[in-house]
């Protein structure tokens, strides 16, 4: 502390950063505090950043006036399927790229990496046509199918698997194990850390996706959470903002838990995607 006192610049820096961080967190505090106000008082001034009343019935109302529990379930369902399929697909591809030498490997790898630069927004229209032809518009499959594979995930897993020492699989080969066995029993367990990272990033991307549900889903029962909230805020008048904000607060719970649990892995994932170029 005495060291700090001698450094007024450092103290100034800490104060400025602290104020900025308070501002960064203030909207969350406002969302929670306002979601606990009487709906009629949603916009009563002054605004509160710490709860002044506890009208938890807003939380009840958001679940009863809208199939909200259903939309949470939908979001979870889509995200979980996307995560599981990404794990299977990216470890299979990652293993093939890291360990099997087959004809055309390099070209296919480049081809898939090039897929990273196709923007979602440019694919919206043709993807919609593909889904319409398959009769999948309005179903969760229209969100799941395109998200089942991610070139970036394949790249991460391949990079990781290339570092696994060959001696592990050689021993298994001598025992007569086949490739599927080696992939399942050696490569998947040994790639745990990269799989966790890929899973968390895929989960958040799916949970937070807005544009795809907006285009593919229109019935309330099939909507995912972000689209449901948008629909809810559109149908409720501003006099019941606190009910909408209760929904917003609920939607923040899952990303918060994911962040607290997987912080280390998420940050690593972001760091790796920054280093990949």
């Amino acid at each position, binding site marked *: 502390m005495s060291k*700090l006192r001698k450094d007024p610049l450092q103290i100034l*820096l*800490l104060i*400025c*950063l*602290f104020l900025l*961080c*308070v501002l*960064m967190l203030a909207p969350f505090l*406002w*969302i929670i505090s306002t979601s606990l106000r009487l709906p009629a008082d*949603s*916009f009563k*001034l002054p*605004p509160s950043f710490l709860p002044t009343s506890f009208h938890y019935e807003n939380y009840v109302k958001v679940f009863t006036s809208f199939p909200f529990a259903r939309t949470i379930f939908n979001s979870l369902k889509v995200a979980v399927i996307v995560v599981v399929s990404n794990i299977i*697909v990216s470890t*299979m591809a990652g293993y*093939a790229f890291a360990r*099997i030498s*087959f*004809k055309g*490997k390099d070209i*296919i790898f480049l*081809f898939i990496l090039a*897929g990273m*630069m*196709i*923007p979602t*927004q*440019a*694919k*919206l*229209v*043709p*993807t*919609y*046509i*593909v889904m319409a032809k398959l009769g999948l518009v309005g179903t969760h499959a229209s969100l799941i199918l*395109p998200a*089942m*594979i991610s070139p970036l995930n394949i790249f991460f897993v391949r990079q990781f698997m290339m570092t696994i020492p060959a001696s592990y699989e050689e021993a298994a080969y001598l025992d007569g194990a086949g*490739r599927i066995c080696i992939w399942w029993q050696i490569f998947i367990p040994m790639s745990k850390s990269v799989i966790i990272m890929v899973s968390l990033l895929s989960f958040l991307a799916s949970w937070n996706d*807005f*544009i795809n549900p*907006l*285009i593919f889903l229109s019935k309330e029962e099939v909507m995912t*959470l*972000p*689209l449901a*909230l*948008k629909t809810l805020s559109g149908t409720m008048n501003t006099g019941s*903002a606190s009910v909408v*904000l209760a929904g917003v607060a609920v*939607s923040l719970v899952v990303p918060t838990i*994911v962040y607290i649990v997987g912080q280390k892995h998420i*940050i690593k994932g*972001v*760091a790796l995607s*920054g280093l990949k*170029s």
Partner: protein
Amino acid sequence: MKGQKITSVYIKSKNRKNNVAGYLFLAPTLILFIGFNFIPIILAFALSFTKYNLITTPEFIGLENIMRIFHDSNTLISFHNTFKFLLILVPIHVGLGLILAFLVYKAKRMQFFFRTAIYFPSIVTTASVAIAWGYIFSTDTGVINYFVRLLGGSNIPWLTDQTMVYVTIGLFSFWKFIGTTFLYYFIGLQNIPEGYYEAARIDGSSSLHTFFHITIPLLSPTIFFVMITNIVGVFQIFDEPYLLTAGGPGTATRTVALQIYQTAFKEMNIGYGAAISFLLFLIILVITLIQYAGQNKWVVYDYE
């Protein structure tokens, strides 16, 4: 001679086995990749030359859609608006992100708290928080204008003024997404070997001089990466204008992505929407190619 032949047959059968195994392991990837990445882009290209509304069969109309892009005022406005967003959002993220990361890097206390508070908004659902920010920015009842009035100002039309909406979306974008850029920079700063700073200290370099002559050049790969990802990101910007301003007021914040959404899914003009989509794809392709070409040229990679 005989032995050689046996070996080559063995290798051949092993190669064949490897080929089969390789493609079996890649089968799910290839099917999904071709079905939902490759075919869509080809389809976007093909549909660009048609008139199509999902119900009738596509009708070939040649270059009409492509010509229309250059005459349709709404599409031109959407490109113009997207360029405005580029000019505002890219400097915010590339510049402020770096300053913020540098300041947190220099902080000797509470670094974990700073990092978490700055990064946290990046992982929450954009749509949810944008709804909340819509209330926060509202002119008469919003939180921000309450403080503006408290400080003696008059209400600011955050969401209803053609120019002000850019400030609004800039503020929201900073709050929501600065964390990712911040993290890239922060990790980049941590990767700079301490030795450089020691050498600079010994040479009596001022901290400002050190920042511009050591930190920035050594961070150039990260700066370059952040710039490219932000440019690509802004070209696709959709959630923020859709949720905060619905592209308005009027067409003030209608971006290319919103224009695609509007033409293809609201006006059911699929062919024209596909043409704009394909143009967007080409633009992003060019930027990415510039990235590959540029990263070798004007970026310091080795720390030696």
